[in-house]
């Protein structure tokens, strides 16, 4: 890497981490510090190792990269930090720096990046699984995951009784007067692992409008998170072009909607794309955000206790908190669980890289779900759903896990 490149990365990181006052607030909230209480787990530890590296006090070694990779990018620290230090962004930039310094983010991430960039592979999930297995990432799709997805139909038949099943047809009272063209952004994780939920999203959208189905690229978060920024930018450009005609772009994956909303920030110094990226980002909405905004009424109300696991990329990432909860309040007996916005430990591929730590974080989540007494835990992100499904099994199937589009 050229010296100027290093300078550029270091400046970008330093602008963030030099704002860290080292107070320690983040120690009390970082989920990783909560299960492994050594300094380097916390945001303070990570920001300062970054600082140490920039100032030449520690060498940019593989161990430093390990510390930088050991982050859920969950933004809990950012939310609580008095100086609002964007630790997650700093970690992403350093991963990028290492990827370029080492010529690659490591075989595994590179393979993952290549895979997610390839639409055909993503579409044929059988093929995907094979490749995932080859690179040892098949645990991304837990054993029997896709076939055992708890479908809307099963949900209604087990919790609602036959009457509710029949009353599904209700057309939405909403008249989209402004004739806005709504497009659906299909996330890779949703497509590969939760086809029933994707169907649910589309069915709901169809009660409101005729959604455009576009053969989109991956949102690029896995690439961005692991130092494949140029892949990320390539895909972003393609997505921007693909969706130019839509007025609203709805995604049922919080990681996608969150990432896409922030795309504009990556093109601020690219005059050719700046405007288009900003326009694209403005059009993005998460499914519950969109449905809430248009006043969607759930198709059925079922007498079952449900709770919401708030994905990091939804609540802290986009400030979407009340919308899914209100939809659920209309769809069933909604109860707020303790720590609903705590990370579940999924965090993209974190749970594959650090299974034991992710498990400890998930255990806390599972206990909160169990204590809430909910029969259904609902979320809006495939990685979270994967984690929550693990928790469900570990709890002896005390609760079921569903995507919000399957219950409203």
């Amino acid at each position: 890497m050229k010296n100027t490149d290093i300078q550029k990365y270091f400046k970008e990181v330093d602008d963030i981490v030099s704002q860290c006052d080292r107070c320690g607030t983040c120690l009390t909230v970082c989920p990783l510090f909560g299960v492994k209480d050594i300094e380097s787990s916390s945001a303070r530890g990570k920001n300062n190792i970054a600082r140490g590296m920039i100032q030449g006090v520690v060498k940019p070694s593989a161990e430093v990269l390990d510390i930088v990779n050991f982050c859920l990018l969950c933004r809990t620290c950012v939310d609580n930090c008095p100086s609002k230090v964007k630790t997650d962004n700093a970690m992403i930039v350093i991963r990028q720096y290492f990827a370029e310094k080492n010529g690659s983010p490591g075989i595994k991430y590179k393979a993952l990046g290549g895979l997610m960039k390839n639409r055909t592979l993503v579409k044929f999930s059988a093929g995907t699984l094979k490749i995932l297995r080859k690179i040892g990432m098949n645990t991304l799709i837990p054993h029997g995951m896709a076939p055992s997805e708890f479908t809307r139909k099963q949900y209604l038949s087990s919790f609602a009784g036959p009457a509710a099943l029949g009353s599904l047809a209700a057309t939405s009272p909403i008249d989209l007067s402004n004739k806005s063209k709504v497009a659906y952004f299909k996330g890779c994780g949703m497509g590969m692992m939760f086809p029933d939920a994707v169907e649910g999203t589309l069915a709901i959208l169809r009660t409101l409008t005729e959604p455009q189905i576009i053969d989109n690229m991956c949102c690029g978060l896995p690439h961005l998170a692991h130092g494949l920024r140029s892949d990320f930018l390539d895909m972003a450009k393609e997505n921007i072009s693909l969706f130019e005609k839509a007025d609203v772009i709805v995604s049922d994956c919080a990681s996608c909607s969150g990432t896409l909303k922030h795309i504009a920030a990556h093109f601020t110094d690219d005059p050719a794309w700046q405007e288009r990226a900003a326009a694209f980002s403005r059009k993005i909405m998460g499914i519950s955000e969109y449905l809430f905004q248009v006043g969607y009424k759930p198709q059925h109300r079922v007498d079952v206790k449900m709770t919401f696991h708030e994905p990091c990329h939804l609540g802290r990432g986009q400030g979407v908190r009340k919308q899914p909860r209100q939809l659920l309040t209309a769809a069933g007996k909604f109860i707020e669980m303790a720590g609903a916005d705590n990370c579940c430990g999924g965090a993209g591929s974190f749970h594959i890289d650090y299974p034991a730590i992710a498990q400890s974080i998930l255990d806390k989540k599972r206990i909160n779900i169990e204590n809430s007494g909910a029969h259904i835990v609902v979320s809006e992100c495939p990685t979270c759903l994967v984690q929550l499904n693990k928790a469900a099994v570990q709890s002896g199937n005390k609760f079921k896990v569903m995507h919000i589009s399957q219950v409203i």
Partner: protein
Amino acid sequence: MIADEIKLKIRDIVGSENVLDSNVDCFGYSYDSSFVPMSAENIPDLVVIPSTTKEVSAVMAIANQYGIPVTPRGTASGRTGGCIPIRGGISLALHRMTQIIELDERNMMITVEAGVRTIDVYNFCAEKGLFFPPDPASWKYSTIGGNVGENAGGMRAVKYGVTSNYVMGLEVVLADGSIINTGGKAIKNVTGYNLTQLFTGSEGTLGVITKAILRLIPMPKVRNTMQLMFPSLDNACNTIHKMLISGVVPAAAELMDKISLQAVAKHRKLDINPSIEACIVLEIDGETNEDLQEQAKKIQITANEFDVIEVRIAASQQEVDDIWAIRRGLSSAIGAMAPNRFGEDISVPRDAFPETVRLIRRIAEKNKLTIAVYGHAGDGNIHPSVLCDLSKPGEEQQVHDAIDEIFAAALSVGGTLSGEHGIGITKRPHIAKALGEAGVNTLKMVKQVFDPNGILNPGKIW
């Protein structure tokens, strides 16, 4: 460097999962919340994370035998470099000693381990209607060990005092590993020297505190918050004096100067009346709501005598939170005003507050720097924040000069170098000016008795 065989012994004591020795892991224990620059020399050779007093004692015995420096550490929220292991050796991280051993409601005392966080002590007692008043702004993450180590203060000091006013007894592991208990639950206790108070504020240089017995008081039933805006700093200070003399003692009396207010206004996008030069935030507490109204009325009358511009008495919890959010966010808001910031912590007799602020203004002008001033006006503890950009040539020297002059100003009005953050590394060069040669020698003699090999937190205070 610590030899492998010694590391092995230490691992045997605390378990190898509780010892860190890789350079990057140890790096995390080389800084605290002070502005001490990072340095490879401050990285400890070993981080040891004990869970019991017995483990602490065994580790100290080994360190003493081999002459290895040991620096106790709570959560490194200290502002003066206290827990930075500048001589390497062992960073003794005590944050896992988190047992609340006993709440003795009849005697109104709680016994806790050193790693318990301040806020956890407060909450635990509050559930039983008891009150642990010391409230450093860092209370959500600072440990009791660190609070005792620094004799931490807080906003409530004006009415309720500082940490030392609540420490009844300590369990301390000495440099050679022996364990002593000082003080106890007896309120009157003159058996031997008052070692409890000697260890309180000793910054980890005399012994490792493993347990503390803390005194509690009944929780005030009601509280409220007021915000007063003044046309001058003197008027604000005079209001506080008059209040205190007339027997109205607020639970907290925080003062902010104009620069601080501007920082908050900018950070929170507020508009502030330009004629306002100073702001006071008060917490009042008592037994009944009438009690509070009475206090608020008296305060208002006094403030009127000093041309108060605005008086806001919180009418809801939301308003209370809003007002305190301004004060709590102050440090960050000021930090955001410049690339670098040096926060100081001087303490002066209460009536010298306005004079000291005037001196600081002059220092700022002379050195062409912006210095925001806020502090605990009720007890004369001032936090001047020097704003600067160290990348500008010559600015670093100006900042150092200004800080020297601020300390000189504090001493000139009969004040001292530190109100609550301790001396640590950052104020070491100034201690002789504050205590005199003989004074510093006395400290050294005390240290010599407790730690003849000089292994406990070496290089601090003087």
